[in-house]
């Protein structure tokens, strides 16, 4: 039997505000425990929340970028549950009426572009942090210590449709979402640091079935890789259980990144009943057209719009354009290059090829690399002029990236300029011909394709510096006379 995996993701992103969602405490990280707190975010008796305008604007920004419909009225609700890191005994969140609904995000998987639906984008407040003592995990610890510094940090929750069909796709979606959130300046989107978090729902069904299988909810994935690994484990588990005729039980499971496995919570899980109701201490958020439009225009060109412009104006393939806009800095780099030299296709190839490979291998962003658009353009122009070969240019690029030296210096230091002096080349050609009498004979017998081998020998002799066109021309001259 063949199975299909169905995945939906719920992402929480910390909004880049100075102050918390409902009080004036700073959102800065790394302060001494319980110093970024006040009566409001510690839920003292009698306090009241007042909503941070910037948080609403960042959420609207996100919703626009995810092609969502901004709802004319959204309402904060209380999600009631007891936990020590939740000082009020409820989390203020949006429930029945979220800020935005019905959007999508495009991702690229294996050369195909997939549109993943977004059910909703809503605002909520973060909980605090518990430090469990006496053991590494919650269970078995002697007591727990609570730090409310993070309590009340503004979050957006982004809920995807169950449109994702593989763990790989899920990881790509998360990366694409992170890129987008960074791109529009809403969140620094670092999973490892917790500013971007994700819970995943996975179910498996018979291929062709339109009904969903029983799903499990996965938590505690702290990197894009972890998302993929947790889902891979769970996909395999579901498939095996179902293939054995077994049943999956609906539950929450935790991912353990030391073993790359997931575990259900021990014991019976109490059915959650959050008793949501409209938060009486807050009034509805009703963004009018003017406000939304002002945010939209301040947002400038969105990644998708930019992608379409790259395709239309620079005749890039949709894939290349997609890859370029995946990170704002990369797209900016590309555009700066094109202003200097109107060869978009060649520039795109360099950026997405050798440059990106170098950066990926070292886990660097284009901004962190010691490399400017001027340098890339210079490199391309030197190939055009014939000063260096395309092949050497690749070596030069790496050297420039590694050393931070200028293109010219790298070429001069290593003597990698192309050999275009006819006199010198003639002498080398003659010695190559003398050393390969067999091939010369074959050529004369009519096997002219053998000339490629001879060009190769010339390149080898010159350590790749010979201008291959010129070498070819001289070889022909010498052989034909």
């Amino acid at each position: 039997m063949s199975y299909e995996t169905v995945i939906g993701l719920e992402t929480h992103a910390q909004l880049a505000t100075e102050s918390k969602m409902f009080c004036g405490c700073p959102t800065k990280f790394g302060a001494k425990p319980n110093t970024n707190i006040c009566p409001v975010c510690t839920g003292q008796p009698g306090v009241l929340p007042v909503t941070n305008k910037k948080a609403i604007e960042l959420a609207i920004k996100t919703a626009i970028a995810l092609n969502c419909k901004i709802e004319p009225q959204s309402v904060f609700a209380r999600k009631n549950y007891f936990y020590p890191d939740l000082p009020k005994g409820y989390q203020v969140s949006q429930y029945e009426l979220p800020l935005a609904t019905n959007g999508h995000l495009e991702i690229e998987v294996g050369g195909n572009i997939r549109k993943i639906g977004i059910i909703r984008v809503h605002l909520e407040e973060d909980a605090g942090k518990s430090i469990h003592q006496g053991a590494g995990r919650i269970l078995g610890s002697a007591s727990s210590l609570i730090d409310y510094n993070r309590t009340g940090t503004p979050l957006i929750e982004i809920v995807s449709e169950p449109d994702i069909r593989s763990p790989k796709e899920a990881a790509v979606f998360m990366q694409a979402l992170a890129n987008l959130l960074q791109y529009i300046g809403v969140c620094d989107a670092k999973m490892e640091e917790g500013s971007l978090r994700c819970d995943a729902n996975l179910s498996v069904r018979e291929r062709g079935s339109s009904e969903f299988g029983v799903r499990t909810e996965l938590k505690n994935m702290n990197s894009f890789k972890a998302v993929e690994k947790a889902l891979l484990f769970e996909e395999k588990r579901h498939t095996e259980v179902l293939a054995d005729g077994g049943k999956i039980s609906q539950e929450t499971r935790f991912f353990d990144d030391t073993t790359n496995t997931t575990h259900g919570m021990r014991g019976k899980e109490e059915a959650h009943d959050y008793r949501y109701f409209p938060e009486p201490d807050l009034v509805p958020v009703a963004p009018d057209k003017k406000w939304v439009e002002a945010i939209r225009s301040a947002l400038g060109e969105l990644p998708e719009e930019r992608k379409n412009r790259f395709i239309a104006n620079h005749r890039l393939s949709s894939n290349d354009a997609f890859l370029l806009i995946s990170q704002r800095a990369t797209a900016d780099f590309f555009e700066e290059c094109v202003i200097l030299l109107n060869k978009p296709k060649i520039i795109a190839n360099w950026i997405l090829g050798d440059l990106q490979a170098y950066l990926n291998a070292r886990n660097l962003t284009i901004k962190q690399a010691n490399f400017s658009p001027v340098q890339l353009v210079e490199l391309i122009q030197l190939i055009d002029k014939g000063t260096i070969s395309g092949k050497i240019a690749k070596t030069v690029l790496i050297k420039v990236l590694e050393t931070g030296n200028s293109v010219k210096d790298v070429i001069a230091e290593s003597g990698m300029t192309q050999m275009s002096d006819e006199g010198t080349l003639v002498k080398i050609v003659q010695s190559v011909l003398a050393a390969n009498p067999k091939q010369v004979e074959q050529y004369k017998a009519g096997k002219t394709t053998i000339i490629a081998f001879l060009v190769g020998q010339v390149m080898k002799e010159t350590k790749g510096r010979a201008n291959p066109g010129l070498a070819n021309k001289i070889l022909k001259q010498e052989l034909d006379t």
Partner: protein
Amino acid sequence: MAITKKDVEHVAKLARLGLSEEEIELFTRQLSAILDFAGSLQKLDTKNILPTSHAIPMKNVLREDKVVTCQNTEDILANAPAEEDHMFRVPRIIE
């Protein structure tokens, strides 16, 4: 609508209220009576009526994103039933 002892126990658990056997009995009776009384609302036709969460309707009450540093964090901690390393200590968490 009659509510059962089991309902009362379930609700007490949701509300994290420890109740004695007598209280459970008492609340089962009293809540039933109150909910019976509240059941009279079901007679009213509210099909096209919107709910009122706020008697005085308002919208978009927002504050600027400005940091206001609290001067009384120590007073907040001073109320902690148990404190350790500038944190609130709670007994072990078992589910």
